[in-house]
């Protein structure tokens, strides 16, 4: 708590909290990053669940590069948003829930990728003859989790804006 109180009194924190443009600009980056990460994740999950079957799964490689870029953008803008009001955020359940949901969402995408890879290269099978868009049942089940978790992260993120902070130091 002492550290957070110190953080909240730094120049950067003050600028992020009280300047005309600091907070809105950081929020802009955060919204674009969200669009990239969640948007691409949702389209990928839709594809795994059977949408647009002629869309090669490998076609998502470059899009996931973009999603990672969005994630990096949101990690940086997220840290800045935290520096702006560290005490309030750490005391807000919605914030902690959001962080947990993001970790789980990332983890669920990793599991989904692993599931798809193991379906593409089953032991002993001729890899070349396998079509790349064969999706197993377990992969489809795995594709439901990122959708639910990202939507949960958006909901809890929005709720952060509706909680009241502690009084100024």
């Amino acid at each position: 708590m002492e550290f957070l109180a110190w953080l909240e009194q730094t120049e950067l924190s003050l600028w992020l909290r009280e300047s005309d443009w600091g907070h809105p600009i950081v929020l802009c980056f955060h919204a674009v990053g969200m669009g990239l990460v969640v948007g691409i994740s949702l389209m990928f999950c839709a594809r795994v669940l059977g949408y647009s079957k002629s869309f090669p799964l490998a076609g998502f490689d470059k899009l996931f590069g973009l999603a990672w870029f969005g994630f990096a953008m949101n990690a940086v803008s997220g840290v800045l948003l935290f520096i702006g009001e560290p005490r309030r955020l750490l005391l807000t359940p919605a914030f902690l829930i959001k962080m947990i949901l993001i970790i789980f969402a990332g983890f669920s995408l990793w599991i989904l990728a692993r599931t798809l890879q193991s379906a593409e290269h089953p032991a002993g099978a001729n890899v070349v003859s396998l079509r790349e868009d064969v999706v197993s049942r377990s992969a489809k089940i795995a594709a439901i989790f990122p959708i639910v978790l990202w939507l949960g992260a958006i909901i809890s993120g929005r709720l952060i804006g509706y909680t009241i902070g502690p009084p100024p130091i």
Partner: protein
Amino acid sequence: MNEADILHWIRDTWLGVTVRQSRWIFATGETLHFIGLSLLVGGILIVDLRLLGFIRRIPVRAALAFLPFVIVGFLINLLTGIVFFSADPMMYWPNPAFKLKMFLILLAGLNAIVFTVWRQRLALGLCDDESGDTFTKVSAGLSLSLWLVVLLLGRLLPAFEGSTKFF
């Protein structure tokens, strides 16, 4: 009826009154607005990046198949947008960021119609690994840029509240 009369009328409609009285309609609307945004951005990225030639290994038809996500995302945001506007029309209407945002959404819609009418058939005939002609690329680039600015203006709306600068 002048401008102020119309804004007052909207504010006093059943919708406007209900939204202002409720503790949760506005917050739920905002959450849905973000979800709609994500659907729109995800879908439009696939469509526009394919037409621009960035993800050429994907068949154009398979990429354009993601358009319904864009349309659903847009409709969610149009409806929730109407909910926001009805709650406080006098705040939104004079806001320069709001005006520019609405104008750019119209432009993006017009751009989508122009592409659909003049180039969609041609684009669907593109082979895998082929990118569109200059017209298609300009239209796709315009679409991406317009939606990006629309998103940014939406986020900046509160910062322009009460401002008449720039426009």
